[in-house]
């Protein structure tokens, strides 16, 4: 076993009192979002019931990351939704103590054999299942939006904003990220922030669980059009359900480079599926506010990733690429939402 495999095996042995001969095998890093180091591995151990073998995922905090998030939020979201209509991997252990693997981490089930890449949707067999995938993707978001955060236990572990304060809280958070991290002045995003403050949206229809990064690329799917797991909950929080809807239909996720949001179906169709599944309404003016906000949030993330890379805290080239590839597209998306780009 490698050093990391041995240390991970020691940790798991400490967590599984009934286990012996705990072994971690085949640990290898995979792309799983730039905010956490993601590894897959096979766990083997002997238990009173016999030999156990499981494929698992390790998500470890890196020295620097695309977004500064609480790994507990992600773990708690997985725990809240596991076994519900929202498919997620089974979360196993959350460890905040850095003595085990140098940085905090959590371990969860690995679901193998599915696709996650957005670009794969443009080719057969997936390109023949876009309507089914859209139906599942936006229906599952509807399930997330209509879920009761209190019943899920999330009001105990996440801040609970007032319905009329959801927008201001999110805007203040991401504006602060831009203030702290921008390497170059951003006239479009600054104008968008001023517009958002001049045109506040109505209070949220309900307090909802907001995934925070609900987009094509962050779920596992198959060639029959089924979605098997919603991943990457690191920005999960409680807030306005329109936040996730607006983020998911943002122009920068139009992977097919046409009008299909998330590379799947047109915007009106996506909204209709979400409204039916959630029982909520996407008021056009309110949604527009959250669409403009999405471009501010997106730009904040690309700005933050660029700073992480430039300062050498995390030199994964994907952090540099995200700025190069998406900042201009995000500005164009903001201009479109603001009605400047037609």
């Amino acid at each position, binding site marked *: 076993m490698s050093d990391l495999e041995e240390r991970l095996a020691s940790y798991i042995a400490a967590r599984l009192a009934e286990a012996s001969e705990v072994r971690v095998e085949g640990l290898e890093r995979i792309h799983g979002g730039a905010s956490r180091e993601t590894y897959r591995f096979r766990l083997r151990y002997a238990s009173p019931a016999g030999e156990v073998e499981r494929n698992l995922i390790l998500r470890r905090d890196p020295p620097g990351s695309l977004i500064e998030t609480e790994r507990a939020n992600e773990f708690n979201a997985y725990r809240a939704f596991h076994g519900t209509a929202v498919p997620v991997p089974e979360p196993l252990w959350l460890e905040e103590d850095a003595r085990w693997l140098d940085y905090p981490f959590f371990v969860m089930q690995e679901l193998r054999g599915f696709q996650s890449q957005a670009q794969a949707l443009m080719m057969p067999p997936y390109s023949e299942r876009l309507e089914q995938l859209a139906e599942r993707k936006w229906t599952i978001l509807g399930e997330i939006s209509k879920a009761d955060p209190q019943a899920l236990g999330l009001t105990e572990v996440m801040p609970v904003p007032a319905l009329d304060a959801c927008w201001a809280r999110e805007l203040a958070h991401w504006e602060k990220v831009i203030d702290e991290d921008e390497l170059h002045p951003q006239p479009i995003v600054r104008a968008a922030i001023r517009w958002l403050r001049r045109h506040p949206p109505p209070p949220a229809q309900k307090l909802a669980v907001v995934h925070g990064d609900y987009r094509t690329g962050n779920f596992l799917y198959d060639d029959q059009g089924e979605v098997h797991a919603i991943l990457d909950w690191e920005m999960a929080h409680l807030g306005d359900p329109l936040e996730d809807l607006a983020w998911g239909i943002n122009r920068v996720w139009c992977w097919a480079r046409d009008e299909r949001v998330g590379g799947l179906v047109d915007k009106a169709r996506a909204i209709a599926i979400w409204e039916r599944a959630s029982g909520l309404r996407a008021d056009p003016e309110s949604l527009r506010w959250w669409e403009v906000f999405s471009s501010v949030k997106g730009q904040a993330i690309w700005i933050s990733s660029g700073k992480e890379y430039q300062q050498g805290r995390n030199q994964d080239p994907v952090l540099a690429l995200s700025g190069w590839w998406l900042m201009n597209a995000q500005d*164009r998306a903001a201009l479109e939402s603001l009605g400047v780009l037609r």
Partner: protein
Amino acid sequence: MKPDVPVVLENVAAKLMFELAPQLRPPFLAGTITVVGVMMTMLREEWDRAAARRVEENAAMRALFREAAAQVGDAGLRARLEAAASSAEASLRIADLDAANDELRRLLIELHAWAEEQPGDAARRLETAIWRELLASTERRRFSIAPF
């Protein structure tokens, strides 16, 4: 004959993405090499236009400030606009052009916020001119492989 930089970048990017990456293990390493290849294709696109688009953008902002200065009542802001309008590039090095661009865009943000607070048609025309330049700026910076 010395190969041109865009040709080299394009060929090296293709080698990385389509020949090397598929053979690499673990998958994370293959993904990283693909990312580097994508960045090289973007560098290829930026190489030729890098100085030109910066010079064009800085000139556009200086011209905008020259016209705006006459209608700005705030003496401090007007003085900064006039100074920026009459400024020139220190050199055609990208770092110098970027430093000037940062200064000019900082002032553009200030002018834009000022214009939004002013009543009257002249302020609306100024806002329109600023938006037109911001739109032009995004088109200058656009990459052909961008999703939008």
